[in-house]
């Protein structure tokens, strides 16, 4: 592939060990492909690299441009056809892997996880990185990189944006989202990039009945984004990919954060911290909150 063999001269120690681990796993047949990050001209962020030979693995990089969540590729049949999948994961990406395991989308033995300790990506670090509880991915087959000081996640900061929105009046909120949702073109990039949107048939593609109107008018867009956020409630791991790829820059993360916060507040639940957790919407407790029920 055109990026193969692209070998940065000044590879960092992590990158060296990453390339080694990946090349080794490919060479000894542990995996059929390693999906990691590569650099490509014309792209500000690292792009997914599918290394199928040890040489191609030399193109792997790991730096602050590695924002993407590669777990998205795990369920894809095209990728599975390449053999066992080696996946480069940051701590946050691992949360998505955990949800995929929890939801039986993948089996643990089908993936070879190359964890990389990560202090945060982008300059300045992304919001998700500043509140990340899992800088150090645990449960990987290999874990690389220096250990990272685990900053105590500041809950107030985690929800600052949500709180700001909630401080607004209902009308202001409506105006805000109306403007945002009007922009949506229904490209579904948000869905396609989400590692947890793996449905064989998305609800918008179900025509009988058509719960979500496919037309990119405000009504359809609202329905789509409400459904997307709700289908990810208790599941979204906050990787922020949806918001990143939205070509019209709708702050989708805000919706996800709102719902994640709610799950934490109501059910003391954070998604993807372990592969054997029980999603809040698939269980219940007799003492669940009753507020607002008449």
């Amino acid at each position, binding site marked *: 592939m055109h990026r193969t063999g692209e070998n940065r001269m000044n590879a960092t120690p992590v990158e060296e060990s990453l390339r080694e681990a990946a090349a080794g796993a490919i060479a000894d047949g542990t995996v059929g492909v390693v999906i990691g990050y590569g650099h490509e001209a014309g792209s500000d962020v690292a792009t997914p690299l599918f290394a199928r030979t040890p040489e191609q693995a030399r193109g792997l990089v790991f730096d602050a441009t590695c924002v993407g969540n590669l777990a998205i590729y795990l369920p894809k049949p095209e990728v599975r056809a390449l053999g066992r999948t080696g996946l480069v994961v940051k701590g946050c990406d691992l949360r998505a892997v955990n949800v995929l395991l929890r939801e039986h989308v993948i089996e643990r033995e089908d993936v070879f996880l190359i964890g990389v300790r990560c202090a945060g990506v982008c300059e300045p670090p992304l919001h998700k990185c500043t509140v990340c509880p899992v800088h150090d991915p645990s449960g990987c087959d290999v874990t690389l990189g220096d250990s990272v000081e685990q900053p105590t996640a500041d809950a107030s900061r985690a929800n600052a944006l949500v709180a700001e929105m909630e401080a607004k009046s209902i009308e202001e909120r409506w105006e805000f989202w109306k403007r945002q949702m009007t922009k949506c073109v229904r*490209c579904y990039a948000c869905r396609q990039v989400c590692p947890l949107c793996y449905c064989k048939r998305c609800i918008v593609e179900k025509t009988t009945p058509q719960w979500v109107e*496919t037309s990119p008018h405000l009504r359809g867009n609202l329905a789509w984004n409400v459904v997307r956020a709700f289908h990810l409630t208790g599941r979204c791991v906050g990787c922020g990919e949806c918001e990143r790829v939205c070509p019209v820059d709708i702050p989708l993360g805000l919706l996800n954060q709102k719902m994640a916060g709610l799950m934490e507040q109501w059910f003391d639940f954070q998604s993807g911290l372990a592969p054997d957790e029980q999603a809040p919407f698939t269980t219940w407790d007799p003492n669940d909150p009753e507020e607002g029920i008449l």
Partner: protein
Amino acid sequence: MNDVSETKLYRLEADWLDAALGALERDGVEVLAPVKDEDGSVNLAPVTASSEVATDYLNALIPLKSVFMPRTEVLIEYERAGVGDVEVLPGAAPAGQRVVLGCRPCDARALVMLDSVFNWDYEDVPYRARRDSTTVVSWACMDPGPHCFCTSVGGSPHSAEGSDAVVYLAGSGPALLQVVTAKGAAFVESLGDRAQPAADGTALPEPPELETKFDTGEIKTWLDENFESELWEEVSLRCLGCGACSFLCPTCHCFDIVDESTWKHGERRRNWDSCAFCQFTQHASGHNPRPNQTTRCRQRVMHKFKYFPDRFEQVACVGCGRCAQNCGVGQNLVSILSRIQSEEKP
């Protein structure tokens, strides 16, 4: 369409924009111009004052095609009329007179391609109506961006194809306006004395240099031979199968037709669609002629650089670079094409 035989050049006064906006408003003509929204992206939107118009932008996020083929439009409406019967209402009223003031030449050039499809034996009435009632005044590019490659696909930062008039806003000097069509000429009329015929011999500014990245002819030669090629799988693995690239592409025109109805009332809408979507071609039996992302990626490239030239003698890409810029996984049409180019000439 309505080509004026001889290109005419005008010099524009500094306040030409206000004059134009004022005059057009008086005539009841709606003006669409680049406007920067609260989130910082630039899009074509109705304007009434020159202060609303953004000039320091590379290109609109949503391409010009949306003016002629909105991302959603009502094709027909109907009303339930008794048991098992409906009354089909006339479609949406034809669009009024509009002027697009300030699209980029690549977007305007894309209209030529859309015209080919929408007037291919069958004339698409809603498209044609909007096209007829809209004057396209593009602003020539003086400073192309890193993703731009119009020159590689037969265009130019100063291309006048598809525009009714082209405005050159060059540095501190006076703006020039080139009339391309009768509609463009009519637009100049509306400027009154704010537009003066340029002195004979006034030269248009030289278009800025752009590296040519590939040769569309050679690409087509390769595509003609390589419907089956491992390259398709390689380049498609990372593609997410979203519609971001095609929705933002000024030449992509695939659409869906859906009915949206309540008990009484219904609308048949035309919405943008994308060949990248997995359900796009799926049959009722579950059979899918393009069952995976590899075949769908191939379709997009083939469509633009082989099928379109086969049928319309032009590639269906104007080199705006939006697809590369907006792809979440850095899928880059230019890199695929360069790759093909290198296959062609090893």
